[in-house]
C-alpha cells in the first residue's frame, strides 16, 4: 500500500548520442522525462527543431490506410535498423490510390449526369436541338411542385413549360421562351425558385442515346477500377510485413525525436533529466555501462524543488486493477498513501455482499477474465475479484443462481457455525444484515479517519490531524459515540455517563468548533495567511458535520439493502420460473428458460447498480475524508504506436 520511491536523474552527454540516449530511455520503460530549463551559464538552450520524420511517417500512415492494414505491434526486431519500404514503391502505391480516387470521381460525375439525363426521359429529340437554337431559349431544371401548379394555372404567358419528370417534392422540365423575352421569363422562374441544371457540353444527343453512352463509359471505368483494386490487393499481400515494419520504424524515430524538445543542449553536449523508480537505479546504470559519452547523477529519494515528483503507485498484484478507480479520482501526492489495496478490499467485499450468489459470481468471474483477455481492460480484472467475493458470499447466503438451500446439508457439517448458511430471505436475518452493514460502515469511516490522521501527521498538518472532524477530535467523537451506541444496542449497557459525555462528546465537539483558532495556534508556519474564525460559520459547519457523521453511517445501509433486494429479485425470478414450470408439457423447458433469462437480467441490472453503489461509497464516504488527488502521475517515455 505504498507509493514507489523515486530518484531524480540528471543526464549529460555528447550531443551526437542524444537520439541513442532517448531510445535507451524509451526501452528502459521507467523514465519519466521532465522539461529541462535552459542554463545560461553553460550556454545550454532548448532544442527547437522540426521533426524530420513527420513526412515519412504520414506517408506510411497513408499507405496503411489505403491498403487497410491493421497496425501490428508484435514485430520484435531492432526497429531503427530494420528494412523499409522503398520510396519508389511508396510513390507507386500512392499514385495507384490517386488514380483510383480520380476514377471514382469520374464515375460519380457520370452518374450525376446520368441522373440528370434520366429526368429528360420524355424528350424525344436531340438535347442540343432543344438547348442550342437561334430564336428560342430553353432551360432545363427543377422547381418545387407547388410552383409547378402555379405554372399550370398561368394563362397567356410568353413561355411554355414542358414537364419531364417528377418526384415527391420537385418537378423537372424545360421552360422555353423567345430569346428576347428570356431575361424577363428567367426572372419569373427565379421567383419560383427554378433551379437550373447545367448539362455538360458533351451531352448533345437524344437522352436515350446519351444514357446508353454514359452507362457504357461507367462500365469500362468500373472495370478499370477493379483492375486497380486488384493491383492494390496484390501489393498489400506482397509488402504487408515490410509496410508494418516501416511504420514501426518511422513511428519510433518520430516519437523518440519528439522527446528531444525536453532536453537542453549547446554545440557539443546535451542535458536531459527526469525521474526513475529508485529500485531501478542499478538497471539504469547497467544500461549506459558501455557508453562513456553519457554521464548521469542521481538524487535518490529526495524531492526536487524545481520539479514535483511523479507518483507511481505500488500495489500488490491482487488489488492492482483498483488503481484505475484511484487514478480516476486523482493521483495521490508523492510520499502520501496509496489507497488502492484498501479500496480494492472494501470494493470487493461490499460488491460481494450486495451481489452474493455463487453461480452469478462465477459468471462474473469468468466474464471478467474473458473481458480482460480480449480487451486488456482493468475492468475485467476488477470483475474477477468482485465475482470471487460474490461466490464467497453466495456460499454464505446459500444461493446458486437464485436456488436457495442447496448447500444447507454441507453447512450442517460445520457444527460450530450454526448461523450459517445465512439465508437473506429469512425474516430473522433482515435486521442483522442491515446492522452488519452499518457496523461495516462505522469501521470503514473510522479507518478513513485514522488514515487521514496518519497522513496529516506525516505532512505535519497538526490542525487537520488533531482538530478536524476527520482528525483525532472526530475519531474520539465518532468512535466514542459508535461504541456507546453499539454497547447500548447489543449489550444493553449505557456508557453515556457524565464523564463519558464530557470527554467523548463535548470536548471533541468544542475542538472541532474551535478548530480554526486552535489550528492557527499550532500552525508553525507564521508566513502563511491565517484562517479567520467566525462563530456563525463554525456553528453551521458543526451542524453539517454532526449530520454527516449520522448520514454517512446510514449510507452504508444500502449494502444490506441491496443484498436483500438481490435476494428478493431472485425470489421473483424463481416464482415466475415455477409458474412457467407448471405448464404441462413444456414445463421443464419453460422453467429453464425463465431461470436463464431472469439470471441474465439480474446479472446485468444488479451488476451495474451494485458496481455504481460500491464506487459511490468508496468515492464519497472514504476518499472525501483523506484523499488529495493533486499528485503528478508517472508517465514514462514511450512510443505510442496506436496513434
Amino acid at each position, binding site marked *: 500500500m505504498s507509493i514507489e520511491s523515486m530518484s531524480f536523474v540528471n543526464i549529460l552527454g555528447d550531443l551526437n548520442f542524444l537520439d541513442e540516449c532517448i531510445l535507451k530511455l524509451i526501452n528502459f520503460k521507467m523514465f519519466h522525462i521532465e522539461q529541462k530549463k535552459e542554463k545560461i551559464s553553460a550556454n545550454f538552450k532548448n532544442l527547437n527543431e522540426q521533426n524530420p520524420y513527420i513526412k515519412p511517417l504520414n506517408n506510411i500512415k497513408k499507405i496503411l490506410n489505403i491498403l487497410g492494414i491493421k497496425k501490428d505491434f508484435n514485430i520484435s526486431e531492432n526497429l531503427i535498423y530494420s528494412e523499409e519500404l522503398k520510396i519508389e514503391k511508396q510513390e507507386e502505391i500512392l499514385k495507384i490510390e490517386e488514380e483510383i480516387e480520380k476514377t471514382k470521381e469520374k464515375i460519380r460525375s457520370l452518374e450525376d449526369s446520368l441522373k440528370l439525363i434520366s429526368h429528360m426521359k420524355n424528350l424525344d429529340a436531340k438535347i442540343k436541338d432543344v438547348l442550342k437554337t437561334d430564336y428560342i431559349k430553353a432551360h432545363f431544371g427543377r422547381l418545387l*411542385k*407547388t*410552383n409547378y*401548379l*402555379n405554372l*399550370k*394555372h*398561368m*394563362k*397567356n404567358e410568353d413561355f411554355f413549360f414542358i414537364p419531364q419528370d417528377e418526384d415527391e*417534392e*420537385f418537378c423537372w422540365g424545360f421552360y422555353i421562351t423567345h430569346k428576347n423575352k428570356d431575361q424577363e421569363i428567367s426572372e*419569373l422562374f427565379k*421567383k*419560383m*425558385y427554378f*433551379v437550373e441544371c447545367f448539362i455538360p457540353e458533351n451531352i448533345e444527343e437524344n437522352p436515350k442515346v446519351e444514357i446508353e453512352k454514359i452507362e457504357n463509359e461507367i462500365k469500362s471505368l468500373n472495370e478499370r477500377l477493379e483492375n486497380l483494386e486488384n493491383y492494390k490487393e496484390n501489393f498489400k499481400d506482397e509488402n504487408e510485413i515490410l509496410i508494418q515494419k516501416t511504420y514501426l520504424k518511422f513511428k519510433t524515430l518520430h516519437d523518440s525525436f519528439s522527446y528531444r524538445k525536453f532536453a537542453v543542449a549547446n554545440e557539443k553536449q546535451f542535458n536531459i533529466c527526469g525521474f526513475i523508480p529508485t529500485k531501478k537505479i542499478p538497471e539504469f546504470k547497467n544500461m549506459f555501462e558501455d557508453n562513456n559519452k553519457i554521464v548521469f547523477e542521481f538524487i535518490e529519494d529526495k524531492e526536487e524543488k524545481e520539479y514535483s515528483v511523479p507518483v507511481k503507485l505500488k500495489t500488490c498484484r491482487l488489488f492492482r486493477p483498483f488503481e484505475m478507480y484511484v487514478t480516476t479520482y486523482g493521483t495521490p501526492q508523492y510520499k502520501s498513501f496509496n489507497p488502492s489495496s484498501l479500496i480494492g478490499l472494501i470494493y470487493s467485499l461490499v460488491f460481494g455482499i450486495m451481489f452474493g450468489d455463487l453461480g452469478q459470481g462465477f459468471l462474473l468471474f469468468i466474464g471478467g477474465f474473458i473481458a480482460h483477455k480480449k480487451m486488456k481492460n482493468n475492468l475485467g480484472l476488477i470483475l474477477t475479484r468482485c465475482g470471487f467475493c460474490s461466490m464467497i458470499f453466495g456460499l454464505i447466503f446459500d444461493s446458486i443462481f437464485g436456488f436457495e438451500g442447496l448447500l444447507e446439508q454441507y453447512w450442517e457439517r460445520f457444527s460450530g457455525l450454526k448461523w450459517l448458511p445465512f439465508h437473506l430471505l429469512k425474516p430473522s436475518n433482515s435486521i442483522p444484515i442491515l446492522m452488519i452493514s452499518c457496523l461495516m460502515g462505522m469501521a470503514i469511516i473510522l479507518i478513513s479517519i485514522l488514515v487521514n490522521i496518519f497522513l496529516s501527521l506525516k505532512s505535519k498538518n497538526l490542525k487537520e490531524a488533531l482538530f478536524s472532524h476527520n482528525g483525532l477530535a472526530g475519531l474520539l467523537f465518532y468512535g466514542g459515540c459508535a461504541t456507546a451506541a453499539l454497547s447500548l444496542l447489543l449489550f444493553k449497557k449505557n456508557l453515556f455517563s457524565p464523564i463519558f459525555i464530557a470527554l467523548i462528546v463535548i470536548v471533541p465537539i468544542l475542538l472541532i468548533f474551535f478548530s480554526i483558532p486552535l489550528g492557527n495556534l499550532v500552525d508553525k508556519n507564521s508566513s502563511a495567511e491565517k484562517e479567520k474564525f467566525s462563530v456563525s460559520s463554525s456553528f453551521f459547519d458543526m451542524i453539517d458535520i454532526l449530520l454527516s457523521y449520522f448520514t454517512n453511517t446510514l449510507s452504508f445501509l444500502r449494502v444490506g439493502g441491496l443484498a436483500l433486494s438481490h435476494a428478493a429479485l431472485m425470489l421473483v425470478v424463481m416464482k415466475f420460473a415455477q409458474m412457467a414450470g407448471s405448464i404441462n408439457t413444456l414445463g421443464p423447458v419453460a422453467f429453464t428458460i425463465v431461470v436463464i433469462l431472469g439470471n441474465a437480467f439480474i446479472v446485468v441490472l444488479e451488476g451495474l447498480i451494485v458496481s455504481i453503489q460500491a464506487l459511490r461509497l468508496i468515492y464519497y464516504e472514504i476518499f472525501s475524508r483523506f484523499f488529495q488527488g493533486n499528485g503528478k502521475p508517472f508517465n514514462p517515455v514511450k512510443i505510442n504506436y496506436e496513434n
Partner: protein
Amino acid sequence: MSFSSQTAITKMRAMYGKMLKEAEYLNILNCNKIEEVIDFLKNNTHYKNSFNILEKSEITEDLLEDLIKREAFLNYKKIYRYANKNKVIEFFIKHIEIDEILKIMLIITGNENKRYLVDLPQYLVSKCKIKLFNLVNVKTFDDLLETLKNTKYEKLLLDFKQKNKEINYLKFEHILYEKFFKELLKTVKAKTKNVELFELNKLIKTKIDNINLCYIYREKTIFKTDSKKIKENIFNFHKNLTPNRLEKILASADSSQLEENFKEIYKNIKNFKLKKIEKYAEKTEFLVCQHYINLSLNLTTVFYCFYILQQIEIKNLIHIIEGIRYNLKKEEIKNYLTI
C-alpha cells in the same frame, strides 16, 4: 379529453420544445453572413427537414424566408389531421385564406411589385375554400371579384366596392379581419365552454387589444390622425382596452399623456416606453402563449398558442436575416426579437 387531442397536444409540445431558444437566437446573431445563417439553421435546428430538400448552394436569400415558413406549414400538417373537424381550428385555414387575399390586394393596390404565386403546401391549398391557384392570373380588383365568385368573400368585396370609390388596402384589411375576429369569437363562444372558453377569449382578445393599441400608437404619433377616423378602424372586441380606456387614450393630447394612458394597460412592464409598444404587444402575447402551451389541457388553446409562437419565431428569423442583410449591429437586431 379524447386520445387524438392528447396526441396532438403532446406532438405540439414536442415541436414547441424544438423551437428556437434564446441561446440559439444568439448563435444565429453571431453569424456575419446569410450563408452562415443558412448553415446554422440547416445543421442545428428543426428547420433542417425543410432545408434538406435543397442543396446549400440552391438556397437563396429569398428562398430562405419561404423555407422557414414552409417548415411552419409542415408542422401544422403534423397536427392538423388530428383536429380537422374542430370548428375553432378551422379558422386557421380561414386566416390563411385572408392572408392570401391580402397578398393579392397588395399587388392590386400597387403596394407591392411582385407577381402573386401560391407558396403553400398542397394539403393547405386543398383545404382552402377558395381556389388559390386561380389567383395567379388576377391583375385587377374585378379579376379578384371574379375569382372569388360564390365564396363568402364575394359579398364582402362587393360591399367594399360599392362603399369605396378608391381601393384602400388598410380599409380592406380591416374589414376582412373584423369579420374574421367576429366569427372566430362567435364560434369560440358556441363551441367551447368553461376553461377552454376563458383561455381562448383571453388569447384572442389579447391579440385584438395589441393590434388596436399598436394601430392607435402609429396613427396618433406618426400620422397624427383624427381620433374619429382612428376609431373607425378599431376592432370592437376587447380585453383590457375597454370603451372607457379607449376614449381616454384617444383623447390623449400628446405623446406623454398617451404614454401614461398606455401604461395603465401594460401595468406589468417596468420603465414603459411608448415607442416600444409594438415590442411590448408581441412580448405580452408571447408570454401568454408560452404559459398556455405548457399548461393548458385544451387542444384549441394549445393549437392557437403553437400557431402564434410559430409566427413569432418566423418573424424573429426574418428580423435577423434582414438585420444581417443590412449590416445592422447585433444588439440592434436583438432589440427587434421577441425572446
